[in-house]
């Protein structure tokens, strides 16, 4: 699709992040090509969220390099705002703005950050909201919606800026199983349309289905990574096997 395939969209090398004495990410390296869907799995506290937050510079890394499209974004001279314009993110707790309507949540960044004319931004937001089955909630405030609806709005909000890379931080963790399906259908859809994504998830079945690469994080390190068919079925590391035994339903 794009002309140059020379550099990967995202390249992380030897990333390190500490909070005081605690090492949260240690020597993490990861390459994401365009149209890749990278799933980060691992138990709570393994560093999945922190890694995602480092990728759009919400956290300052303590060592290592992150390149977006070949350009180092961990350089102190880089304007984080410019980087985040190209990256969309959705959070576990939705983090919608409660004082704005659904539509206003979705048009805030396109209008204020990207300079899209309001009419155009609203039209685009309405289209996306309709696609995700939210057309009747456009003018409501987020608190009026169910968790699954809120999370879909959060996804639309992230997509409205047409990001090159989408970061999803356990977006289904706060939802009940029925709603999980709704949200995952959307993500699956996005994956099929070629959206590049890095997502932290506990949904192993989903990871197996959509991921091009699965990374298993343990204690702040990527213990192993590979295509889902390999990693989720016959992992190399004993630690990975242990983790999968705990989270995967027994095979019938």
């Amino acid at each position, binding site marked *: 699709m794009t002309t140059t395939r020379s550099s990967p969209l995202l390249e992380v090398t030897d990333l390190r992040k500490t909070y005081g004495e605690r090492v949260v990410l240690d020597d993490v390296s990861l390459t994401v090509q365009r149209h890749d869907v990278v799933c980060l799995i691992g138990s709570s506290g393994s560093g999945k969220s922190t890694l995602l937050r480092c990728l759009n510079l919400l956290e300052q890394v303590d*060592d290592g*390099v992150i390149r977006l499209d070949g350009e180092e974004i*961990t350089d*102190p*001279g880089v304007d984080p705002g410019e980087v985040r314009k190209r990256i969309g993110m959705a959070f576990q707790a939705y983090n919608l703005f409660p004082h704005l309507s659904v539509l206003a949540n979705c048009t805030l960044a396109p209008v204020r950050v990207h300079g899209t004319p309001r009419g155009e931004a609203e039209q685009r937001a309405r289209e996306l909201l309709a696609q995700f089955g939210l057309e009747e909630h456009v003018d409501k405030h987020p608190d009026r919606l169910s968790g699954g609806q809120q999370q879909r709005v959060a996804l639309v909000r992230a997509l409205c800026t047409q990001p090159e890379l989408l970061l999803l931080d356990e977006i289904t963790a706060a939802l009940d199983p029925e709603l999980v399906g709704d949200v995952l259908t959307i993500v699956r859809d996005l994956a099929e349309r070629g959206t590049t994504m890095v997502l932290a998830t506990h949904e192993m079945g989903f990871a197996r289905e959509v991921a091009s690469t699965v990374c298993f994080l343990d*204690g702040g390190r990527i213990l192993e990574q590979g295509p889902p068919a390999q990693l989720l079925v016959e992992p190399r590391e004993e630690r990975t096997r242990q983790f999968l035994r705990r989270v995967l339903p027994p095979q019938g």
Partner: protein
Amino acid sequence: MSGQTWTPSERELERRGVRRRQRTRRILLASGLTVLVFVVLVLGVRGTPGWPRVRETFFDSFHARESFDAILHGFWINVKLFLICQPLILVAGLAIALARKARSPWLVPVRALAVLYTDVVRGVPTILLIVLFAFGMPALDLQGLPIDPLFWCGVALVVSYSAYVAEVFRAGIDSIHPSQVQSAAALGLSRGQAMRFVVVPQAVRRVVPPLLNDFVSLQKDTALVSAAGALDALFAARNYANFNFNYTPIVVVAAFFVVITIPLARWCDWLQRRWMERERAGAL
């Protein structure tokens, strides 16, 4: 894990250098600008045609020294008044706010009174309240109550400020998301308990800055008691000024007030930062 063996890479060291330089540049810029602004301000004021006369009447070091003791003595009254009134206002303000939030049918008259109280009291200028209380209350000849105008000045300040502070508390209570009340209710806490253990503690943290605002204002308004003849710092300063045709003592009083409000502001900042660090650690 490998915390001990880790050494920063070349690139990280380089980045730290850049960040350090950026920081130095920012500090230099900030200090330079600050100095510049103050120099311009000072030069601007000193350049005005009337400056020599203003300096003589308002900034005379001889008169400042001469009036200092009397003002210091009077200022003690302001400080006492403030220290006694402030806790009373906090308690009264919170009580009024809670009365307005009460939902029990028994408390409806209290609620109505609270609404009336805040509406009326906030509408009356503080200085009028002070004069009314200081001269009117003793005139009632109530048994067992002091007739000292200073006492009634204090009461007037408590009455006036508790109305403002009640509204601040109420805004704070309203700003706590209903889900907090629900989760407290789900744990079996009564409405009162939910207020006391869950809502109010959060609300208080949130309204510290506006409360501080009111208390700085209260500190200054203790000077209004001089209107009722209490011998506070402003009274002493005005006394001196009227005798010597020099207003320097007024500036001295102003300096006194500034000196006591600044530590209060810093203390509140510190308190808030501590709460923030504890409660928002690692939050998004």
